[in-house]
């Protein structure tokens, strides 16, 4: 290809002094100096978490303190990176929640595997697992990055319940046992 020599445009006087460029730069600087800061001084300052944010998956209890998970293992099945591992167990009949019959013996979520997709929350038929506001997980070892059942309930806390499905079941059973209700 042929080379086309292009004449450089000669600079004007103002351009040769560099002053307009310096001032326009300083204008931006001063403007930013008086504007409120747009960054956060993390970790002293924390962001406000918007609704629907998908943080660390946690297990929740209902307002009566019953653990909602019944270890149906649907989250374990649906989890794309296979981060969830559940060992199901039976609730003894004498227990106050004996009518629920089933609860997890162990519930582990490996946060090194979790991709925060929220499918576990979506699939949960008992509304027991939620991706809440917690976004920062750190640890010194791989083992520390696995959230066990106790930690999951600690992170999750209690959330309001719309249905009280199992309480209704219990009261129907009690009514039946005392001759009321059906059967």
């Amino acid at each position, binding site marked *: 290809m042929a080379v086309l020599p292009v004449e450089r445009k000669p600079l004007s006087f103002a351009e040769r002094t560099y002053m307009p460029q310096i001032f326009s730069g300083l204008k931006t600087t001063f403007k930013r100096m008086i504007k409120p800061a747009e960054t956060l001084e993390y970790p002293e300052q924390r962001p406000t978490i918007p609704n629907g944010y998908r943080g660390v998956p946690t297990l929740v209890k209902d307002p009566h303190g019953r653990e909602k998970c*019944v*270890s*149906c*293992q*649907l989250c*374990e*099945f649906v989890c794309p990176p296979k981060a969830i591992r559940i060992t*199901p*167990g*039976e609730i003894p*009949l004498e227990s106050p929640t004996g*009518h*629920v*019959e*089933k609860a997890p013996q162990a519930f582990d979520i490996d946060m090194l595997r979790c991709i925060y997709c929220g499918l576990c929350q979506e699939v949960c*038929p*008992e509304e027991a697992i939620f991706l809440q506001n917690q976004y920062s997980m750190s640890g010194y070892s791989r083992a520390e990055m696995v959230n066990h059942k106790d930690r999951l309930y600690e992170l999750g806390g209690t959330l309001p319940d719309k249905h009280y499905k199992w309480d209704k*079941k219990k009261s*129907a*059973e009690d*009514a*039946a046992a005392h001759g009321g*209700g*059906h*059967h």
Partner: protein
Amino acid sequence: MIAPPKPELVTVNIDGREIAVPKGTNIIEAARMVSVDVPHYCYHPKLTVVGNCRMCLVEMGLPAVDPATKAPIMDPATGKQKINWMPRPTIGCATNASPGLHIRTTSPMVKECREGVMEFLLINHPLDCPICDQAGECKLQEQATGYGRGYSRFIEQKNVKPKRTLLGPRVVLDDERCVLCSRCIRFCKEVAKDDVLGFIDRGSYSTLTAYPGKKLENNYSLNTVDICPVGALTSTDFRFKMRVWFLKQTNSIDTESSVGANTVVWSREGVIYRLTPRRNDAVNDTWMADSGRLLYKQVRTDDRLATVQVNGAESGRDIAVNAASERFKQGGVAIVGSGRSSVEEQFLAKKLAAALKAPAYLVSRVGKGDNLLISADRNPNVRGALVTGLIQTLPSAHLTELAASIDAGRIKTVVSLGEDLTAAGLSAAQLAKVSVIYLGTHANPTSAAAKIVFPGLTVFEKNGTFVNQQFRLQKFHKAVPGFTGAIDDLTVLAKLVAAASSSGTAVASEINALWTSLAAEIPALGTVLFKNLPETGLLLDSTPWAGLPYAESATLHYQLAQPALATA
């Protein structure tokens, strides 16, 4: 052999497709032959028909004939015989194929019927699928997906029925989930012959229960769990252990007796969770005994052998094979094979015996047969030892001949393939006189006394075949990886055979390679190969061994062979 009479065939038309089926076949089975699914709950191919679930309603029609002349009435539009469709649906399970029968399973009426039945069944259903063990293999779930309304019109309070009731030591009943199909009742009555279940109360209060003072505790009780189309009956052993959709299914064979019931091993990530029967109409139909379902527990026990040992010290496989080879060179070897070993292992054991010119023995285990699916011979594969030629006569429970040889000093080394020699009648003093080479799965007095120990695999950890009491060759597959430290029995045996033979040539230990020589050397097996052996097994010609005094009495699908002298 006399060929069974050919069944009379009748042609029926299902959803426009003609098929010839044996007379007496019901519509559900006939539809299955043309890959048309007729949903059902109460019908079970191996139980009587009661027709109480009403799920299999289909539309039925018969070719029209003139009432007076019996001449076919033709339809001028199609040029074919006119079909008189019945105005109301009929149940498929109790309708037998008759010539020219026409069935519609996809018409709007049938669809409406199914939706109606589903709605009734779901009215009082507790919808506790998240805690129900049947979820994933539940007919109610499947049919609700296909014919469910998707929402409930029932706003009244649902029935409350007993939950978590123990019907027996192995079966838990949840009455709320029960759809009253009565399969379990019919099974107990007709197959297990232990009529303990029944319905009490009426209408929507109907409840399944055991008769007062009785329990569902016969050795076949867990079959009721298998045939329960919903989650009403669950197994105490499998309850809440694992969801079925995680489990891998591997075909296997029950080893508790010579019946050789076909089974499925359900495992996840190398752990077995349950055993269930697999349908084989020639062996076990769709049943198996409860006792056989617990056999998977032998896989993970504390007394599993996990290290190769030479003179009590941990060693390596090849060192142990060399040590065995040294003992073989001194002569005086006897081989105690096992009726629990696979055909392939017995074949290699026979090769080992031939190479060493050693006598081979087997130990019999005789218990009480239950005339159903547990035979008197508690070894799964004594017939295999006959077929491979490891033994010529039936074994006895005690190794008296071997004991005498040891006392006489003729035997210096005993190779035991998983048999506990002390249980088979050898004294500790006799064991101390010889050096024992033990290849087995679990620790026992023999493995403790053995000079060389090879840790072997259980039936769930290897491939192989058994020959059951009918001389049916049946294969089992590896369901889970071998126990850490254990070696495939075939590898050990192949190495021992190579060490014992004068030429020292390698022997195939991989099952498919081994089968080429097995089939070539054993005429009874003909052209069978492991890979082309059907999953339901292959009946071998048993005439060479017909006159032997077998321990078995009649069981399901097994009749005692008439003694040859009786007819002569």
